[in-house]
């Protein structure tokens, strides 16, 4: 393979229509001018209540209302939604129903569904739905959940959905033998992904074709399709699910099923008209999954050089009201606490506890920002106790480049063990320190440092279809959708290299089950590794097929052929070859010449060869479908370092310099990877210092609007200085590792470290804010 496009800063092919306002997001769908019915959900205003009755008579009677559904009106109304990732330790997994009819367990839980001729009529009708609630006691913090002050589910003792204990080495004896021991406590609050496009679903049922078409702002159209086929008893081939342009995902759109994802298709089938639902921002705040609420107790044992001897971590994960996503989040935290460091004895226990809040599922970083916070804050504490430089303590504990593959000794989210495939952690650290440079002058300036590893590219698999058309253009498709990660560009780069064509001649479709029906989804920094390698596999199969067709026709050895410049040619003899377009024609023996040069493949003109036109095992068309299933995760890594200044009176945060050294193996497109990192760091800064989900004791989110949930604008985000190192993954042919989540992971740890130094106060919690720093600085 001649590498030509891989690694280049190719400008994105998806930009033009997005820039012209021709993007197609789910709320923009208006197929053939069909005006879809519009819908709204009636949601619980209480965090915990028994439903005595639901009265929808007035709503149903309102002119313009087409249908009102409660659980009693649904054939699946009394079925619990699935636990997506069952696990033996999830002994008390609970999921909600599509519409609650007995008990609501968080503010925002759906109770009724209204379909009307317009959105405004549906919203007016929602006001007429009378739900009689009997209030129940609320459990909102993970601490109160763990104390079991009250129960979220009557049949879940202690509110504990799951408990898991893992140990590598012998922590008790190692702690007992440690020259130094320290106990630490770290608290992380919930955060919200807040993509700029909230969620939306559009569905149409065709009775004539017996076919369901769904547009969904989802990270996993293939899984939605599988679920809808099961629910409605349809063959999967009669269900099309398309994630059109998706306005950001960051995790919560991988959750399935949100109630609307079942109700909108159900209503479209029942009413025989297209139905749409578009979430508004306020309901997004409580209806869409959140993440990050965890409380950690740590005991560390270390020697006088600052070398770690034992680490004991016991943490509580805030699951929210239900556990649809299983226990993936605490499993990831448990696996990722040790990070890039040698921890010879490690024990980790977690309890996943129910609270009366929105359920949790991965949000960019998914269990890792808190894991990183725990480890990095612990190392800072060790450095402070021993009077050592923070960088030096890290240097003494890093896994060395000759220690790969490195086994951590705990379980990973894919059912395998955690084994780091490759990396050079000391190089990351030294480069970050060099790029950070000297400390700026002034008071209240602090330096922060944080390192992380990230398990990326989890399985089970992704696939791709690649076809050379008789025009010579190439079409490629994969099941996973893009939410802005430039899939159409980077997959085109990979395919173009394999086929020796221009990147502009490759057109990619992703996230449309009509084009590619199999696959898993876009999450866990896995797209490039799984779908990227699948693209290389499929395009490689097409290249081999092209060589064999040309070898037949030119009577040369296929091994002597290469694909260059849109042609298949004999190596070293560019005049002996054939354009790919002509090969595509020959790949399909035809009876009828239908244009596009196809006369060359008709029975009286094609070069005769013995046997039938298609030999046994041959398939028509210059196309192939290929799959890639990773043997294990690829482990990306990085080091962030920063200087900050904190105003001693207003506690305003000023980030003076922020450097990132990033290793995601071989980089397909630096432009895209840098965009991912810049965006991730910004999201990390928002989560660390500006954004806070302010739940009160009654479980009400008091700041469910962008007026009060303060996402950073350009004025809050500094320039991020990015540099790369590349340690290719030995696990996949392209040597790549994932990059989507990395930027966000260490930001909290870095800012905590820097602010702690700037103000001289211990920082053990996230998020911070000027008010929080003022409170922490007050003499007690």
């Amino acid at each position, binding site marked *: 393979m001649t590498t030509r496009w891989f690694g280049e800063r190719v*400008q*994105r092919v*998806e*930009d*033009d229509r*997005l*820039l*012209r*306002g*021709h*993007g*197609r*997001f789910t*709320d*923009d769908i*208006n197929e053939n001018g069909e005006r879809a019915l519009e819908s709204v959900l009636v949601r619980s205003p209480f965090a915990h209540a028994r439903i005595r009755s639901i009265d929808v008579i007035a709503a149903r009677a309102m002119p313009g209302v087409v249908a009102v559904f409660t659980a009693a009106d649904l054939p699946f109304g009394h079925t619990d939604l699935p636990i997506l990732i069952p696990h033996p330790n999830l002994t008390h997994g609970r999921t909600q129903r599509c519409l609650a009819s007995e008990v609501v367990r968080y503010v925002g839980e759906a109770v009724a569904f209204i379909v009307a001729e317009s959105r*405004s009529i549906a919203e007016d009708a929602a006001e007429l739905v009378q739900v009689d609630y009997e209030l129940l006691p609320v459990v909102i913090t993970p601490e109160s959940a763990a104390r079991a002050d009250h129960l979220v589910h009557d049949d879940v003792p202690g509110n504990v959905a799951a408990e898991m204990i893992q140990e590598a080495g012998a922590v008790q004896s190692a702690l007992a033998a440690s020259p130094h021991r320290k106990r630490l406590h770290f608290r992380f609050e919930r955060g919200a*992904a*807040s*993509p*700029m*496009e*909230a969620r939306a679903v559009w569905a149409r049922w065709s009775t004539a074709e017996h076919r369901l078409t769904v547009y969904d702002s989802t990270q996993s159209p293939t899984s939605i399709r599988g679920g809808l086929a099961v629910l409605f008893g349809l063959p999967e081939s009669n269900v099309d699910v398309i994630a059109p*342009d*998706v*306005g*950001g995902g*960051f995790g919560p759109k991988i959750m399935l099923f949100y109630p609307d994802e079942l109700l909108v298709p159900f209503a479209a089938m029942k009413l025989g008209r297209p139905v749409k639902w578009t979430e*508004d*921002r306020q309901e997004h705040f409580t209806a869409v999954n959140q993440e990050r609420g965890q409380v950690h107790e740590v005991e560390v044992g270390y020697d006088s050089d600052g070398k770690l001897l034992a680490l004991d971590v016991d943490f509580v994960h805030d699951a929210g009201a239900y556990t649809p996503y299983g226990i993936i989040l605490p499993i990831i935290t448990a696996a990722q606490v040790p990070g890039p460091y040698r921890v010879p004895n490690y024990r980790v226990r977690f309890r996943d506890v129910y609270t009366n809040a929105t359920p949790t599922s991965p949000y960019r970083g998914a269990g890792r920002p808190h894991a990183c916070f725990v480890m990095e804050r612990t190392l800072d504490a060790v450095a402070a106790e021993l009077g050592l430089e923070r960088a030096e303590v890290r240097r003494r504990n890093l896994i060395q480049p000759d220690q790969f593959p490195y086994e951590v000794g705990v379980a990973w989210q894919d059912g395998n063990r955690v084994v780091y495939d490759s990396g050079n952690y000391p190089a990351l650290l030294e480069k970050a320190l060099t790029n950070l440079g000297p400390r700026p002058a002034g008071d209240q300036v602090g330096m922060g440092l944080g390192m992380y590893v990230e398990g990326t590219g989890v399985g089970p698999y992704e696939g791709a279809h690649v076809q050379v058309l008789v025009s010579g253009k190439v079409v490629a498709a994969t099941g996973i959708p893009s*939410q*802005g*990660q*430039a899939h159409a560009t980077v997959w085109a780069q990979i395919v173009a290299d394999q086929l020796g064509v221009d990147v502009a001649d490759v057109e990619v479709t992703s996230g449309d089950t009509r084009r590619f029906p199999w696959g898993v989804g876009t999450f866990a920094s896995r797209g490039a590794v799984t779908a990227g390698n699948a693209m290389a596999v499929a395009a490689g199969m097409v290249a081999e097929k092209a060589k064999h067709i040309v070898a037949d026709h030119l009577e040369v050895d296929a091994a002597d052929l290469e694909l260059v410049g849109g042609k298949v040619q004999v190596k070293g003899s560019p005049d002996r070859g054939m354009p790919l377009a002509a090969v595509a024609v020959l790949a399909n023996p035809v009876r009828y010449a239908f244009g596009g040069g196809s006369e060359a493949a008709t029975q009286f003109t094609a070069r005769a060869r013995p046997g039938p036109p298609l030999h046994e095992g041959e398939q028509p068309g210059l196309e192939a479908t290929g799959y890639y299933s990773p043997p294990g995760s690829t482990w990306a890594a990085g080091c962030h370092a920063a200087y900050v200044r904190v105003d001693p009176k207003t506690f305003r945060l000023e980030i003076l310099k922020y450097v990132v050294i990033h290793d995601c193996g071989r980089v397909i497109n630096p*432009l*895209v990877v*840098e*965009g991912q990192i*810049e*965006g*991730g*760091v*910004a*999201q990390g800064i928002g989560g660390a210092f500006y954004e806070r989900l302010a739940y009160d004791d009654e479980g009400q989110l008091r700041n469910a*609007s*962008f*007026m009060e949930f303060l*996402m950073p*604008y*350009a*004025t809050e*985000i500094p*320039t*991020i200085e990015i540099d790369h190192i590349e340690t290719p993954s030995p696990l996949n042919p392209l040597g790549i590792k994932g990059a989507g989540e990395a*930027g966000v992971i260490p930001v909290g740890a870095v800012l905590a470290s820097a602010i702690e130094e700037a103000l001289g106060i211990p920082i053990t919690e996230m998020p911070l804010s000027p008010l929080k720093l003022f409170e922490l600085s007050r003499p007690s």
Partner: protein
Amino acid sequence: MKVNGAVHPPPVDPRRLLSDHLRHDLGLTGTHVGCEHGVCGCCTVLLDGAPVRSCLMLAVQAEGHDVTTIEGLAADGEALHPVQQAFHECHGLQCGFCTPGFVMSVVGLLEQHPNPTAEQVDEGISGNLCRCTGYASIRRAVVRAAELSKQ
């Protein structure tokens, strides 16, 4: 009201927001709705040449005014507007949802400050939220757009 140079009748429903009118009555879905309370800036359009949030206006309030949406900056088949071109060159967009609002804000910014300082750039885009890019590439795009606008 005039939208992208063409005259349109007023909306039937007097409580229709300008953003909804553009999107759902006129089919100009390039104007996006991210929060409907005037914070995110996704719905930014030009009203008589100045950026406004179309979710904070009723469509009837635009009567007698000249509205420009993202679709009005460059006709199909024609070259991108310099601001659009700059966003492309500088990777100033990822998911593309906030992008039309940013582009319209930057058109307004460069109208006011053809050579914006770094502070004016940050100020000029500080009414728009982006969750993907971290703003660095958008800042670069504004500087590049100022260059392209002069060519």
